[in-house]
């Protein structure tokens, strides 16, 4: 588990990127946070599904 602990660094950096990008185009703090979290969810889902897909391919094919 220690070898893949760097994956935890994915969440802060992506959240920072998304928050700054949203803050650069909007003034409403609620909207900024809402959109950033929604996009973080989508990106995390893509990462997890992609990782699962690669795992399945390597494990059984």
């Amino acid at each position, binding site marked *: 588990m*220690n*070898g*893949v*602990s*760097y994956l935890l*660094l994915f969440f*802060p*950096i992506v959240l*920072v*990127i998304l*928050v*700054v*990008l949203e*803050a*650069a*185009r*909007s*003034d409403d703090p609620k909207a900024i946070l809402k959109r950033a979290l929604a996009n973080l969810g989508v990106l995390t889902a893509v990462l997890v599904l992609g990782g699962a897909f690669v795992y399945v391919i390597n494990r059984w094919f």
Partner: protein
Amino acid sequence: MRLLKLIVAVGGFLFVLVSLFQKKGERMKGVAFLAGWLVPGAGHVLLGKWKKGLFFFTILGATYLFGMWISGFRPVSFDDNPFYFVGQYGSGLTLLIAKLRGAQKAIIRPGLDPSWFDPGLLYVCVVGLLNLVVMLSLVDAKALGGEEPATPAGLEASALPAVPTVGAPASAPEKPA
């Protein structure tokens, strides 16, 4: 001394470039653009959006410090990753810190997993790149909550030529009695 000359030259070039593209009365945006490069968020503060400026400074500063903490408070060297090396120069402050720290090669902080090294460098690089986005948002009127551009003079609706409606009956020629 050479570095100072380089900074002044790059700053002057950027200033002239920005000034050329700015309309009259918008020079402050050019100055804010430069200030935004020097210190993240300073451009917004100059334009009166001090809350937003402070927010950008805090979030980018914290990210930079975290990245530097991972990499032993040493800047990204060209040998570590050429792309991250260039990316960290998106802000004058990070450039200054990198130059002040010298050419010491970054090392992973003792006690941390070696796999954290590359993400640590990425954190430092991302701050520079995000600062470029923050700077560009300064010249975006919508992001600053500015007014919509006014209608150019001479293009008022009353002055525009009347466009004939499609399908409208044209004036029929008078029939001879």
